[in-house]
């Protein structure tokens, strides 16, 4: 996983609640057996006017001019502003894969669905929860000024606005360490292999019927 430390990035606003993972990456693209290449199909049904299929040349497809991320001013955005319950629905990790492949590194919203939130951290994508009022203000500022950027500093746990105001955010210490260092979870867990073996031996003795 790529480490995440700091980012000074262009911000795009996606002003709707309950954006589900079916919307982030529709099912037909889940047939891929790879981990990469989902970016051109992120938000496919909102982004294009036709129905997308795997293996298409997406550059030839008609873009939906009404979809916010298609506006010229948001091209190259790395930070996405979201509303409540972003990433609800399916557990498909293809959703953070698509967002990361599209170019996003940070998501800022009032709340995220649990499984999506968890999946994001495994892919160097940082979801940040802020108070609804703070998020409202970011939406307002972002929509009001073209080229709106935010600075995100994971070590300091701060977001800095162009007006200089700094917003603190919370993150689990363990997740923060993993993200800052780009650590592989599996490698970390296997340091506890002896404990896992000991747990398993005990469980097998107490509850043999889970092992038959």
């Amino acid at each position, binding site marked *: 996983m790529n480490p995440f430390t700091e980012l000074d990035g262009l911000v795009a606003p996606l002003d709707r609640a309950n954006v589900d993972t079916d919307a982030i990456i529709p099912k037909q693209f889940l047939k891929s*057996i790879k981990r990469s290449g989902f970016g051109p199909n992120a938000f496919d049904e909102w982004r294009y006017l036709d*129905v997308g299929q795997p293996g298409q040349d997406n550059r030839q497809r008609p873009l939906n001019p009404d979809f916010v991320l298609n506006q010229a001013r948001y091209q190259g955005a790395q930070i996405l502003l979201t509303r409540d319950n972003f990433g609800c*629905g399916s557990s498909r990790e293809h959703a953070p894969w698509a967002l990361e492949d599209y170019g996003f590194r940070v998501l800022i919203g009032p709340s995220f669905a649990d499984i999506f939130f968890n*999946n994001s951290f495994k892919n160097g994508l940082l979801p940040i929860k802020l108070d609804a009022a703070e998020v409202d203000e970011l939406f307002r500022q972002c929509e009001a000024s073209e080229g709106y950027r935010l600075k995100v500093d994971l070590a300091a746990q701060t977001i800095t606005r162009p007006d200089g105001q700094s917003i603190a955010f919370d993150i689990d210490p363990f997740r923060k360490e993993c993200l800052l260092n780009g650590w592989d979870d599996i490698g970390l867990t296997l340091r506890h292999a002896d404990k896992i073996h000991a747990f398993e031996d005990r469980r097998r003795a107490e509850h043999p019927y889970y092992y038959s």
Partner: protein
Amino acid sequence: MQAQTLYEKLWSSHVVHQEADGTALIYIDRHLVHEVTSPQAFEGLKLAGRKPWRIGSIVATADHNTPTDHWDLGIQDPVSRQQVETLDANIREVGSLAYFPFKDARQGIVHVIGPENGATLPGMTVVCGDSHTSTHGAFGCLAHGIGTSEVEHVLATQCLLQKKSKTLLIKVDGQLGRGVTAKDVVLAIIGKIGTAGGTGYAMEFGGSAIRALSMEGRMTICNMAIEAGARAGLVGVDETTIEYLKDRPFSPRGEQWEQAADYWRSLHSDEGAEFDKVVELRAEDILPQVTWGTSPEMVTTVDGRVPDPAAVTDPVRREGIERALKYMGLAANTPITDIPVDQVFIGSCTNSRIEDLREAAAVAKGRTKAASVKRVLVVPGSGLVKRQAEAEGLHEVFLAAGFEWREPGCSMCLAMNADRLEPGERCASTSNRNFEGRQGAGGRTHLVSPAMAAAAAVTGHFTDVRTLA
């Protein structure tokens, strides 16, 4: 000892290690695997030169991509076929406790085959790269969906990194009215607490109305815990649970059965256990439900109307309703029973078990599909459900009514195979998600119970099943 919730009992019996900030390593007993969310995990494992920790924990099947008709022709879509063949190859290489491949007599939806084979047992931790893994919590086990990175993590370490959830009790007391089913109960719960109402919680369902449900009904309810934002749904173990599990293929036998059942009887929340939050509903207040929008919380009763966004003050919510009505092609204040349907889908991990098919057949019996309805798909959850339904003659009822009787799989719940809606088509569906495009790009989904789906099929529009005597 202090009174404990079921979640606390399950959590504390699986902690292998805990970090200073509370992040814990949780041991996983059962790993269910399907073709869509596993290929990248198996590949990652191989690239890192790792082996699965315990292959005896793995139960696998192909369900999302498999066709529901013309099995003799195989899987026509080459991309779908490749995904299923990749699962075949991965399981062949690493091994498993059980694999039910495409066309196997016991193949089916992963959340149907686990329980019916006794591969899901009380007291276990159960994971799968699928959000509807919450289904298995009906058995008093801690079960939830995980992402593909976590699938790889469980394969490699038999553990998952987790933080303890808060606990939420949904208590439904009283007696459900005639024609009101588990699906209506869970839709009413989601309507009450919202799709994020359970975020961060393990959601236990209790109360006399839940206790009175069969295992099939409890699975329907736990299945949709994730639609209320809760990764895990739970129902405490009772004699209904134990009776269901007796003599299933992977259930313990003989002395071990007695030992297991003794332990399982302790798997319920203790009297006086404290939950972080409690929500109560009266069973008598719950009527047949129909969703009208593009989120499961956008739901009302069959005697209700499509809401009027003009009456909503919160701007984000109002815009959400306006957008949903536009997508759904519905006008504000339309009576639910005036909404016609083009297709009907009876199936999915929510409602494709034998009891669901019996409920649908009871309505379909002696009736026929309305001429205006293009297609009614009945898709059993597994090969075993299909055979049982055929032994009971349910397929003849469906066929006589003009419904299609298909092979098992996920089918039109998410339309990864050929079963899907065309743009603009409206469907009464027993599945779990009415998101935009879920059943096919531009398709319009209304979530209902199997009985309500059958009622819509024979009348051509949403109909209160209680009026069809």
